[in-house]
């Protein structure tokens, strides 16, 4: 092990002094604590914010060293939501891996599914075999996920600053996207819808009408959010020139996504390195040069409008490709069942059960082998980068030629971007920490995995 360091670090104790007095505040009057500290002649106060705090998007612990209201040092402590998903994926088949990685950043479930499946397909060498309609459905889901994620970022951000209406408005809009996602995938979140080789099932009848009906509703709520926030003097006062991170800072800290674009660099993996046919969609990548918290909110809202444009194009393509396959033709990879919704919920369709149980023993064997054993993936490693809602979402997959990943590693953008918390908050006010966390927009499920 390395020699121990004495510098303060994120998970270690701040102070070596066991005599240092400890104050516990559970609500109540802050000035009492300040008075007590002044009476004891303490110069340095370390405030522990979290791990259970409503503004931290999960269980994040922030340690603040303050002088009055000014922060002199910030450290983020993470790991409270670590669930060992990457390790678990090594014990499940490649297809089952989807149900694990969807639970990382649970606000943007299908972003992980998409990145993971693109990785598996690259390992299998079937990237070009994925049917067109499956890619359209993937793009549709990725964009609805992006809208949902941004709405949560903006909505909870507003809530944390005391504007409950912002949150309720955003969540109503997100619910509209969830209705479509549920109609198509069967679930609101943690969908396990995008599978290696395609998607779990085709969009049901009436899906395109439902999407068309959703778009104006979401747009209207987005307009409301814009009207509520962007010209609001209180909102501007809280966010403008707060939590500034310029381009040099972004590059040093590897920041991607809306934060990088708020500093002026229009880097978007969907444009730079298109996947799923993103190069054929018409959309813009909004940027700003203000590099502050306000510009990130503006960008997230603008990106929602752009995503809706992509969704509209997806609907047209879905109508044009009605009846086409949504899974690769290779039966050694494609999930054998056709799902349907029965009286007791979603499951294998009756036709499929009839086929494997009554008509074809070979089908039964094939179904059994593929579902229990999975498919083999040739040995090797790949890295796939996608544009998640929060930034560059990378997946590193290693296969040992078996039916399970040898290693699956996710570069969650929130994990990387949360490193910027110190630089965003030090020298600022305590109240701005909440703003900084809100505009980083990480989800601790993804950060800790």
């Amino acid at each position, binding site marked *: *092990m*390395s020699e121990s*360091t004495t*510098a303060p*670090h*994120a*998970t*270690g104790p701040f102070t070596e002094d066991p005599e240092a007095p400890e104050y516990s505040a559970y609500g109540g009057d802050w000035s009492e604590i300040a008075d007590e500290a002044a009476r004891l002649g303490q110069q340095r106060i370390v405030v522990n914010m979290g791990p259970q705090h409503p503004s931290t998007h999960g269980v994040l612990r922030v340690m603040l060293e303050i002088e009055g209201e000014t922060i002199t040092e910030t450290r983020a402590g*993470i*790991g409270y939501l*670590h669930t*060992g998903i*990457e*390790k*678990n994926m090594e*014990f*499940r088949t490649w297809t089952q891996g989807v149900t694990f990685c969807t639970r990382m950043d649970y606000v943007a479930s299908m972003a992980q599914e998409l990145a993971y499946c693109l990785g598996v397909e*690259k*390992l299998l*060498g079937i990237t070009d075999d994925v049917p067109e309609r499956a890619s359209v459905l993937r793009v549709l889901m990725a964009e609805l996920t992006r809208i949902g994620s941004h709405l949560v970022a903006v909505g909870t951000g507003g809530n944390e600053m005391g504007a409950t209406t912002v949150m309720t408005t955003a969540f109503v809009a997100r619910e509209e996207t969830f209705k479509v996602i549920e109609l198509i995938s069967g679930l609101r979140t943690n969908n396990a819808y995008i599978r290696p080789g395609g998607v779990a099932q085709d969009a049901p009848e009436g899906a395109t009408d439902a999407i068309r009906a959703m778009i104006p509703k979401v747009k209207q709520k987005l307009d409301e959010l814009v009207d509520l926030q962007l010209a609001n003097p209180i909102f501007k006062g809280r966010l403008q020139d707060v939590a500034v991170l310029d381009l040099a800072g972004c*590059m*040093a*800290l*590897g*920041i*991607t996504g809306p934060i990088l674009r708020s500093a002026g*660099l229009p*880097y978007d993996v969907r444009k*730079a*390195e298109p996947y799923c046919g993103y190069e054929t969609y018409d959309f813009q990548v909004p940027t700003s040069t203000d590099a502050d918290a306000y510009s990130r909110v503006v960008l997230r809202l603008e990106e929602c409008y752009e995503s809706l444009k992509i969704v509209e194009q997806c609907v047209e393509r879905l109508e044009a490709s009605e009846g086409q396959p949504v899974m690769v033709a290779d039966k050694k990879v494609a999930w054998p069942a056709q799902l349907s919704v029965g009286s007791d919920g979603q499951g294998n369709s009756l036709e499929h059960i009839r086929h494997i149980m009554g008509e074809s023993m070979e089908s039964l064997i094939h179904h059994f082998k593929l579902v*229990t*054993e*999975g498919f083999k993936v040739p*040995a*090797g*490693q*790949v*890295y796939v*980068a996608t544009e998640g809602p929060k930034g*560059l979402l*990378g997946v*590193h997959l*290693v296969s*040992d*030629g*078996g*039916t*399970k990943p*040898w*290693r699956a*590693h996710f*570069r969650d953008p929130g*994990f*990387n971007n*949360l*490193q910027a918390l110190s630089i965003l908050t030090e020298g600022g006010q305590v109240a701005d920490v909440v703003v900084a966390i809100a505009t980083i927009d990480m989800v601790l499920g993804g950060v*800790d*995995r």
Partner: protein
Amino acid sequence: MSDSQDLTGTGAPQGGPQPGDRKPMTLINVREGMFGAQGDTTGYDLLVKPIQMPGVSERPYGEWFDGVVDVLEELLGDDAGAAIEGVVVDRGELTLHIAREHLVEVCQHLRDDQDLRFELCLGVSGVHYPADAGRELHAVYPIQSITHNRRLRLEVSVPDADPHIPSVTSVYPMNNWHERETWDFFGIVFDGHPSLARIEMPDDWVGHPQRKDYPLGGIDVEFKGAEIPSPDTRRQYR
């Protein structure tokens, strides 16, 4: 089964490299038997199958890969041979196996040279290959150039007995937390890191959970009267 032998012919070359064979860089795993059961189903029990990563590629590598390797070799000068242990091109991705002594120097060149300009390091992903004697622990760095819109992979391999790799945080500060994570999960010590503390596991945790010799720690679950073993102890296909 001490005198197990390779009978498959698909693994490491037997009796010297064959023409056209790529020199293997990484032994991922050695498989014995079939289906993950104790012994294989025939009772023969002597199947041993080494699984190798795709091996070293020969020039031309294709795409932009040759140019980048050329520039890097030129910048490294006399060190190039020692620094770059192997170049692997597989599935359209370029992997440079780098000797750990030269990692920081290589990163510096990759970031700063105008023909390379790999501005972002997208983290470091540890991989544990217990069968790869003397190179058990691998650190994999995906490096992204926004300027040229390229990505390559650096791979550093170290023995389990001496798991030290110099930290690249002096060149890529964004790797701070990523290196902490890889230390936490794999026990790779990144020398020169400003504060190599655990990040995901509790401070007092013993062991490095994502290594292959660390058990998953699943528990059996009773379901409708039957005991279902946890995923790591269940009979499994491989």
